[in-house]
């Protein structure tokens, strides 16, 4: 199956602060369509409509300023919400986004780290990676962590994924693959991720503990402190 062109990425931006978000990330690839979701966090004490009445213009302006720094058409939406995560989920659904960009403090964007879990959601992940690789200076490292007796499957997963990127017109030289043998993929990913600038991770079905403590993908992004594209499940 060929990789689709032009992923849609949701970028949540807090529009309640005057602090301008880092915009380097947003110009990372021209092939990606951006949906800028300006969220305005509303405390329990206030109805969202109240803050909307007071701050809508500011919020719209901040988002518009941000959008103006990006040299192409982006979708903008401002939302006043009690619950950021829920809003992000809903907006991602509404705009049919392939991924959500979680910000990190790291600003370089050249080296992309792509931990692959399996065939699950692979099309979307690779589509996005291909979009990111449209920029010449970007390189991607496909990574898979596996147990000793499943190395063969892991290797074929990585080779296959790299092959599909090549098919999509990416120079093989810019694609690395790495297979790790470990019983704790989470830690392996977190450790390795520090060597890269940017993460592309697939969203996982949240388990009960995830629901309480936060999604795995979110946690990886938190711990790694690198910006991450969390690719949504179809």
């Amino acid at each position: 199956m060929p990789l689709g062109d032009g992923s849609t990425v949701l970028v949540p931006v807090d529009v309640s602060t005057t602090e301008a978000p880092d915009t380097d990330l947003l110009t990372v690839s021209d092939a990606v369509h951006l949906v800028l979701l300006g969220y305005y966090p509303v405390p329990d004490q206030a109805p969202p409509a109240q803050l909307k009445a007071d701050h809508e213009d500011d919020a719209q302006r901040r988002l518009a300023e941000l959008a103006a720094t990006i040299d192409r058409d982006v979708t903008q939406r401002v939302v006043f919400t009690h619950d950021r995560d829920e809003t992000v989920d809903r907006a991602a659904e509404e705009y049919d986004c392939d991924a959500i960009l979680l910000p990190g403090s790291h600003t370089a964007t050249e080296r992309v780290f792509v931990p692959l879990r399996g065939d699950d959601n692979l099309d979307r992940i690779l589509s996005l990676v291909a979009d990111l690789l449209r920029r010449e200076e970007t390189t991607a490292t496909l990574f898979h962590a596996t147990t000793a007796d499943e190395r063969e499957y892991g290797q074929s997963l990585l080779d296959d994924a790299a092959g599909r990127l090549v098919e999509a017109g990416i120079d093989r030289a810019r694609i690395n693959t790495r297979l790790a043998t470990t019983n704790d993929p989470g830690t392996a990913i977190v450790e390795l991720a520090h060597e890269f600038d940017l993460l592309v991770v697939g969203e996982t079905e949240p388990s009960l503990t995830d629901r309480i403590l936060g999604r795995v993908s979110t946690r990886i992004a938190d711990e790694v402190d690198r910006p991450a594209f969390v690719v949504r499940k179809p």
Partner: protein
Amino acid sequence: MTDGSSLERNLGFIEAMTLGGGTMIGAGIFILPGLAAEGAGPASSVSFGIAGFVALLAALSLAELATGMPIAGGSYHYVNRALGGLFGSIVGWGMWTGLMFASAFYMIGFGQYIVVPLPFLDGRALIVLIGLVGLAAITGLNYYGTDESSGAQNLMIGAELIVVLAYVAVGVFFIEPGNLAEFAPTGPVGIVATTGTVFVTYLGFEIIATVAGEIEDPGRLIPLTMVLSVVSVTILYVVIMLVSTGVVPYQQLGSSFVPVSDVAAITMGGAIGVAAVTVAAAVAAISSSNSSILAASRVIYAMGRDGLMSDRLNVTHDRFATPHRAIIATGGVTGLLVLAGLQVAEIVALLAQVASFSFLVTYALVHVALVVFRRVDPEPYDPEFKIPGVLYPAVPILGVVMAGVVISQMQPEVIVVGIGIVALGVVWYGGYARSRTVEDGLLGEAVRIAFEPGGIAFETVGGLFGQAEPSDATADAQPYRVVVPVANPTTQRRLLRLAAATARAHADDGEPELVAVHVTEARPSPDRNVESDRLDEQRDLLTVARGVAAEIGIDLDTRSAIADDPGEVILEVIRETDAEQVVLGWQGVTDGDDDGEVFGSTLDSVIERAPCDVALVEFEQEMIGEPVALVDAGPHAATVAQRAVDFATVDGETATLLTVQRSTDDADPVREGRRMIEWVANRANLDSDEYETEVVVSGDLSAAIIDAVTGYDTVCVGLSERSDAERLEFGSTARRVSRDAPGNVAVVRGRELLEPDGPDRGLADVTAADDVT
């Protein structure tokens, strides 16, 4: 691409149940059993049953209203919408004070549960002090704002619920039938009187309606959570009362500050049970008080939205984004009420009863509001949940009667305070809010427009409560009405001033009156909040319109509607009010916009079909100043001249009638021009001292027109130079003037077309001007 902005609905089933049910179980369960036992003995379980029934009736009516208009404000909002600002003010103040009284009640209960079990602490002063400390903590927390606190709230209510269920489950085995033998020591009167005290506990489901704008899937969840929380809490309370009075004799229970602890000391293993109950009671008091403060700030917000409360109270904090002033005000007054506990021995019962009183009045008015909404059935009101046919109108009628019965048995001092709160609402309305609200405009008018003169119910209501416009009643002679559709906040003031000027200029033809119309274009939206938002905008516009009218001193009637086609509504209002003119705002010519619409679909249909004079005004500057009428032989020339003279009165100027004549050899163009102006002025019934004349002669008509009008502040120009009624045409002169003239431009279309028999010349000249581009 910008998709605008929106609000989020983040409250699901669990959140709504914990808000509603949590508040209801809340503190009441730990304090009320003592008061209830004192008031009615074991039969106080019946009191809870009655209170629950009254609450259920209110929940049904509220649920229908809330699904019809799921926006912040709860009961206040519905009553304000249905019955107008006076009752809105009564209910708004009633809810706010009710919530403060309830909150004070919870905090004193909090003090009691902390102080009494500790042997080394004693005294009322300490109870009050601890209540104040707790209150300060809650107020502070809310000042700084909480984020997703529902998680903590859920945990607290869950723990509390476990203690309560354990209390009931264990307690059942300790019931001494002998204690229940004297079931109703105070008789039916005592039972009903106790209902007034315990009703305070049922404030909780109202909180669901108060945050209706934030609840997901409101059509399903609002009625479900309201009814479910009322029913389950009622059952729980009935059982708790039976257990409590069954374990400890009601006389003993009644004299206790910590009734539930006393029972737990017997049933739940002494000290352990007491500790568990103490912790649960403290947690419950905090969470209930917290919910009350949250709900109070939303009521204040909703009142501010309708102009019933100062916006200064609704300012949100720059950093914490909380409505901190409203929170401080609520916390402050609640603190004073807690302090009253130092002086008043029966403070807990009194606080509870006053809170109950306020909410019983509120719910009674909610029932009335429901009946009004049902009778009138306005278009935007389309509740997803409706009280089933067999129960309507039994539910609202019974609801009002029951509220009256419960109130009638309250202590005299409570009734005095309660009436005082109602009076506060009335006085507030009369003294502060009346001039700031649009209460009599919105609904009644929307209904009249949407349903022809069939808005009987509403007119009755308006008449009953004295909110009918005086101008309607005293309209012996037909007033000279000018319809003004308002949509743009930046230009509506100027638009209204113009309309007032032209209406006044025709005072000979009838008492000048303006009719401000706002139409919200109906766009089907799953996000009802946006809908409500636009209703707010509508209110704002009409409020401003009223203010402007009051400033100018002209009668103003307001109409508003939600419709697919605003043009149709405007036409309907023109026909219905038999208006002489319509004055519309307009954005001006936009180049290269060629979608078959000349002015936009709304304006097109009005211009084409309005059975009255039409003026389309594009504002370029603040001053109306000195107007000029471009006079030609077109069909609207007389109306154009007339409008210019009307508009001149705004700033006390004199209008100029101007015509541009082509320089020719065979005639005197100046004389021709003067002749035509005179002819037009004659048709417009203008006296020669009402206008000045200017004739410009030029070879290049189109350039000369722009040059000639440049010195004037406002240019009036005829819609089309051709007498062509069946085809709307925006004449090229008008187009050019609109595009190039620096001043305001009014494009005028007369109701009666001037017969093109004019002074023999001129017509050809001006028509020729059309061809110049």
